[in-house]
């Protein structure tokens, strides 16, 4: 059997043997990532990358996609890391003036989820992340109130 040819396909999932969907391939990623979730993440990330190339108004769609495809009930730490990383990139790509509009477009559960990601982002500060996260925090607090922060503290399923 010939040695498998590694090829990077959409979603950065390494495939043995070329194009996905061709016979005889298996996904080989870090850990046992289920195919369905991987596709979601992959689509989110590739879409985000293409969308941020065209700035105006598309950052909002990237934001909504990231919120919607957030992994809810998973214990897989790698998947959570991925989601946090994507979310952080989306949040830092916003201009300060656009933050308020993005927060107002969320419903109550979305604001709670956003608050969880903001606090998760605070835990591992990178160079410029804290400043932009603080702006996000101010706007999210105005909409969600202190209750949304309490729900971050009491939540049993961390994001």
């Amino acid at each position: 059997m010939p040695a498998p040819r590694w090829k990077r396909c959409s979603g950065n999932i390494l495939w043995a043997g070329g194009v996905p969907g061709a016979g005889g391939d298996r996904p080989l990623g870090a850990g046992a990532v289920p195919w369905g979730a991987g596709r979601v993440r992959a689509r989110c990330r590739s879409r985000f990358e293409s969308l941020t190339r065209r700035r105006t108004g598309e950052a909002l769609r990237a934001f909504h996609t990231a919120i919607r495809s957030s992994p809810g009930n998973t214990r897989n730490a790698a998947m959570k890391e991925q989601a946090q990383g994507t979310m952080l990139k989306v949040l830092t790509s916003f201009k300060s003036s656009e933050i308020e509009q993005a927060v107002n477009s969320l419903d109550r559960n979305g604001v709670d989820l956003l608050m969880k990601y903001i606090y998760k982002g605070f835990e591992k500060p990178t160079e410029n992340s804290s400043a932009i996260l603080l702006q996000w925090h101010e706007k999210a607090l105005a909409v969600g109130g202190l209750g949304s922060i309490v729900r971050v503290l009491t939540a049993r399923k961390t994001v």
Partner: protein
Amino acid sequence: MAYHSFLLEPISCHAWNKDRTQIALCPNNHEVHIYRKDGAKWSKIHELKEHNGQVTGIDWAPESNRLVTCGTDRNAYVWTLKGNVWKPTLVILRINRAARCVKWSPKENKFAVGSGSRLISICYFEQENDWWVCKHIKKPIRSTVLSLDWHPNNVLLAAGSCDFKCRIFSAYIKEVEERPSPTPWGSKMPFGELMFESSSSCGWVHSICFSASGSRVAWVSHDSTLCLADAGKKMAVASLCTETLPLLAVTFITENSLVAAGHDCCPMLFTYEESQGALTFGGKLDVPKQSSQRGLTARERFQNLDKKASSDTANATLDTLHKNSISQISVLTGGKDKCSQFCTTGMDGGMSIWDVKVRNPHGPLRLG
């Protein structure tokens, strides 16, 4: 709206007598003090000293005029008024942790005590032995029982506990009552039967309340949510994530409205829309008068900006009537279906009485 400051210490718990002229409260120590209303003043008329630990729950039975108190010394006492003195009777609860809350049943022939030993003690009086006997409800409670409320049929008991769940049990004691008729919560009610259990929210359930008809139960939990289960809708649970700090006490004031209060120091109104099965926030009930805003000089503005990073002084002092968290709400007049007055006590040692004014029978409620 009337506010009276009893103490500088928190009021741990309170209970009113039948005609609302006397209030029994615990001033954060081992005693219970009873105050009587003398015109506009309150004077202390009794001091009940029997507990060896802080008194955590008091309930006053309106018809039989008995008090039951429970405390961290793992005991409960039933007090009866003989002449002008309150005489205690010890009730052995058989618990090995502190008792947390106590409630007389509607017919006053039994009472329930929630405790830290993860069980509820249902106590009733046994005539032959002249002694209070208790039975335990244990399964499936996994943590401290923080709050209790009885259903009007004297059998069902709602319990909120620290394992994040609200449950309804049957506390049917065949020695003191007949078999209850079926209710929307279920028809078979042997002792200790679990009739309803909520799915986990994420916070300790601080307070729980049945509606006047008993077909709805509402509870507040520590993750700043208020939930309501409606037996008429197959026990569907409606929940509302509030924007405030966690609430500590809740009560129904009509069949569709609730008043809740907590760490935000003011009572808030919530309404339940039956057709949509949704809870909505009705507003804070403690709207302070607008104090005259004196203008800030430019110097003060810069000083504020330097010290507090914001130039508005709105949040410097608490505008609400209570200056600390409100820990208990009790209905004074009108019952839970047509409440016209309710009372709140809090950690600031004060007690305030709120009037509910109904504009029109089906319209929104306002507060005086």
